[in-house]
């Protein structure tokens, strides 16, 4: 596995970027060059283009964009991770139930999946946030609640084929409980595709969070997020390009890396794609 990562440039590139982003989020307090929250409304500090003093320029309130992006990485990454964790929990439980028990349980869960897939994700999330009120916690919960369907389908498909295997019959003959068979015997064998799907979903969740913050229903100002920095940039689109460009590149790089890792791992784990 580690050798594969080094050999596969796609996974290598992705991993380096993700580690880099992760480190800048963790060490944000040490790396920041200015206070990301303190506004400086003097004319010479507002909307300054990138310079040695401010790597990525300053925003309309004279705050350093580079430092805000470091703190934005903390928020974007943690929202992504927690949302994916919630998604994992729901998708796993429903997928295991559907795949292990089959029959009407499967039917009911799959209908629910189909119905949920009909909702345009973004508007469903906006709608729920409109009623719940926007906050970081709500964003995490709502992204998790609206994006578990793909994972549930994958887990179910794995279970459907694995439950026919001999080791399951053996475990049953030994008198293992359903819970034990499902989670101790079958699940470990189904983890590879789940992991691939999780890396992909993490990218998608980060993308969603930035869209929501851009629309003003995600992370609320003054807390910085990549999405809401761009949202400010929208008003200065003809003058302050740095407000839009840099946070967007950060989102693009992070999400692209996660997608590349996911695709590389899928190729590794899928025997049909091996030459």
């Amino acid at each position: 596995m580690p050798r594969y990562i080094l050999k596969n440039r796609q996974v290598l590139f992705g991993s380096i970027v993700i580690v880099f982003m992760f480190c800048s989020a963790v060490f944000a307090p040490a790396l920041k060059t200015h206070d990301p929250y303190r506004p400086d409304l003097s004319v010479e500090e507002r909307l300054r283009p990138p310079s040695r003093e401010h790597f990525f320029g300053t925003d309309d309130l004279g705050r350093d964009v580079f430092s805000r992006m470091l703190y934005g990485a903390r928020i974007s990454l943690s929202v992504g991770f927690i949302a994916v964790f919630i998604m994992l929990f729901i998708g796993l439980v429903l997928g295991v139930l559907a795949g292990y028990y089959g029959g009407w349980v499967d039917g009911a869960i799959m209908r629910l999946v189909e119905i949920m897939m009909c909702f345009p994700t973004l508007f469903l999330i906006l709608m729920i946030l409109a009623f719940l009120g926007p906050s970081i916690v709500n964003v995490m919960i709502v992204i998790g609640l609206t994006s578990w369907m793909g994972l549930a389908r994958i887990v179910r498909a794995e279970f459907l084929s694995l439950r026919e295997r001999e080791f399951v019959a053996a475990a049953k003959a030994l008198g293992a409980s359903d819970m034990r068979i499902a989670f101790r015997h079958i699940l470990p064998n189904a983890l590879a595709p789940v992991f691939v799907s999780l890396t992909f979903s993490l990218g998608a969740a980060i993308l969603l969070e930035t869209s929501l913050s851009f629309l003003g229903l995600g992370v609320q100002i003054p807390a910085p997020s990549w999405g809401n920095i761009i949202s400010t940039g929208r008003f200065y689109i003809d003058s302050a390009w740095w407000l839009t460009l840099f946070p967007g590149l950060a989102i693009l790089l992070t999400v692209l890396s996660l997608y590349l890792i996911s695709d590389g791992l899928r190729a590794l784990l899928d025997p049909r794609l091996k030459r």
Partner: protein
Amino acid sequence: MLGYIARRILLIVPMLIGISLITFVIIHLAPGDPTDIRYGLNPEISELARERLKEAYGLDKPIIEQFALWLKRIVVLDFGNSFIDDRPVIAKIAERLPATLLLGAVSMLIIYLISIPLGVSSAVKAGSPYDKIMTVAVFTGYATPTFWFALLLIMFFGVHLGWFPISGMRPWYAEYYCFFDSLKDILWRLALPAAAMSLVSLAGISRYMRSSMLEALRQDYIRTARAKGLKESRVIYTHALKNALLPIVTIASMIIPALISGSFIIETIFAWPGMGRLGYEAIMNYDYPTVMGVGVIATFLTLFGLVAADVMYAVVDPRIRYD
């Protein structure tokens, strides 16, 4: 096959009930009753609006009856009146829908026109440097935030070069245009929003087309075609492509939800007078009847799009025999 199509269409009914149930749950998500939502913090919701919301959703009745009431309203598409201008929500949606459909249709056309050749050429040259570059390009497109891409388009083509208008669909003076000028003007204004809208799906669909084409190229009849000495171009463009294009019909099922989700962002950024922007503005103004109306209609559109794609697939592909 007719039986299959009939059953597929009948399946819409339970799906609609499911959708109604989920939207009903969303209305009741807020702690207390829905009229309490941020009432204390939000001076924009007046006592009168609260009363009207209560009345609209029959909130004084038992929960089962409330759901029945909600179902009934959905069936007749009655979402009540907007809090903003007191006009029926469904009328507001109806006047905005054509703009959304136009934007969606043009984007879909662009997606198909670009992604099919892209996917096919990647598959034919699988493993080559060209294919590898395309793969990276596709992932980059997939990872690009739509709203950011839209802003970059505005920045470069709208502000910097000044080639395209950056907002709106019909300016006030469009009334004086003849039909042809009017059409030209709308297409010109469509360019940037449609480009922004297409990007994400472009990546996914060309990827899909590539694997579908690879699958077709692996089939026995391709070996047969080559063995009997057909020209390579004929093998690829007639024998393989025809079969690879079949599943692309169902692909609409991937594009439609993406287009409808995308319309909320794109229409807002480009001030496109469609349903997506109506929905977003309704959310920002706490106009709950409109929010629910747009949500339900957008979901219905997605569902009908998906069913239509399924039915088309059954019609197009003779191999499919659903018992």
